[in-house]
């Protein structure tokens, strides 16, 4: 592995880490709370047959 390739690999790794942090920030954005709370209940609707 030459030096230039190592630099590229390092930059890509840091970019992927930042992307992962961005996913956390995006998901925890307060604007999504109501939608996600509603979605968390979605499977419960399919239980009309429960005894």
């Amino acid at each position, binding site marked *: 592995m030459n030096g230039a390739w190592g630099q590229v690999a390092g930059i890509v790794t840091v970019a992927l880490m930042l992307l*992962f942090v961005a996913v956390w920030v995006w*998901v925890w954005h307060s604007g999504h709370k109501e939608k996600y709370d509603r*979605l968390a209940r979605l499977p*419960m609707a399919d239980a009309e047959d429960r005894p």
Partner: protein
Amino acid sequence: MPNTETYNDQVVRLFLLAAAVWGVVGMGIGVFVAAQLAWPALNFDTSWLTFSRLRPNHTFGVIFAFGGSALMGTCYYVVQRTGHTRLALPRLATATFWGWQLVCVLAMATMPFGITQSKEYAEPEWFIDILVAAVWVSFGVVFFATLARRRIKHIYVANWYYGAFIIAVALLHIVNNIVVPVSLTKSYPVYSGTVDAMVQWWYGHNAVAFFLTAGFLGMMYYFVPRQAQQPLWSYRFSIVNFWALISVYMWAGSHHLMYTALPDWVQSVGMAFSVLLLMPSWGSAANGLFTFNGAWKRVANDPAAKFMVLALVFYAASTTEGSTMAVKTVNSLSHYTDWTVAHVHSGAIGWVAMITIGSLYAMAPRALGRPAMHSKRGMELHFWLHTAGLILYVASMWTAGVTEGLMWRATDATGALVYPFIDSLIAIKPFYFIRFLGGLLIVGGMIVMAWNLWHTAADARARLIKPIPVPIPEPEPLQVPAPVPARA
């Protein structure tokens, strides 16, 4: 808005019953080959009855026939319910059922006769591989076409996992099965040597990742909240875990080739990514278990929920074990021993089979037009048979594996090996018998489930089931994609 659309559960019912049958067949073969290891005379000196010929039938039977049928059936069920829409392309969906059953029968009828590529979890020859690809692409077309006509704007997280499972398995299957056929029943891979091994274990590990993990997490993210009758503990966390899992899993395959001709740095990459995998694995397990918070009384009275809780415990345990075994120093003890067998079955019988059985018990009454399963006592019996069998299986194989590892590495003061190989075989023979007993209990439980499903399906067999109407929500303003109008 008048409600005239109904769910298409016909194909779901077919997959459900096929899963029950393949579960008994696949695990039954597993018990037979376990018996062969305890009593080698059971080979009967017949080539197609030997362990080496039948073992692929066990793995193919439980992973692709049992697991695949359960995954495709629940996928068709979940994508309709979470999208509030009817399954798209119903004829193609039915064709995927018959196509998949044909694949399973062809594979299991040819492998014992030596018609095999000799690649783990990818044994079927090229003409079956082409059929697998055609069925799989059709499955993907039905799934994504149904997603496209959903009436809920957001794609529910279970569908993200099912989608990743479909796309990744197609990619893995095609790349690992690029071969040159030399006759109808024989082909050779285009890869050779270490590259072939690396491609095979990139496939093999990601078959675990995307078939046995992502697909079953899709099942878990729908059926756990449904059965707990509680909202998913953290929807946000489920999204983070999804992206973490699919980003990391692809790079861990080389941990299957520790201490081989594979370059050392590739082995180290596999080890590092395997340890990273702990985070999304524990995240999903915690999300599922916390969803039961406040509903533990329901768990005590509901065998389907019991299966799900224990499945999540074993998911956390077996992924922790897997990450640990990928560390080179631990791997030097565990590799080639029955510890690996214990780990695989802790994941397969503990996580995969239990989340499948729990989900099938949750889905079956609804799909089969009954208020509940035919026998709750049968479900309870199944739970305890399965749990007892699982504990016997993994405890015996852990003990056998560590015994083998320690005996193989033992050296005296001169550096010579202390034990001849035969001594380690003699030492572990009692554990092979215990493993056989464990397997027997598990298959017994599967037979109880098949009996229970058969009786629960009485109305379905008599064609008395009324289709379930799709609850059609009011469209959101400027909804994209636009909701599909109701149709008869």
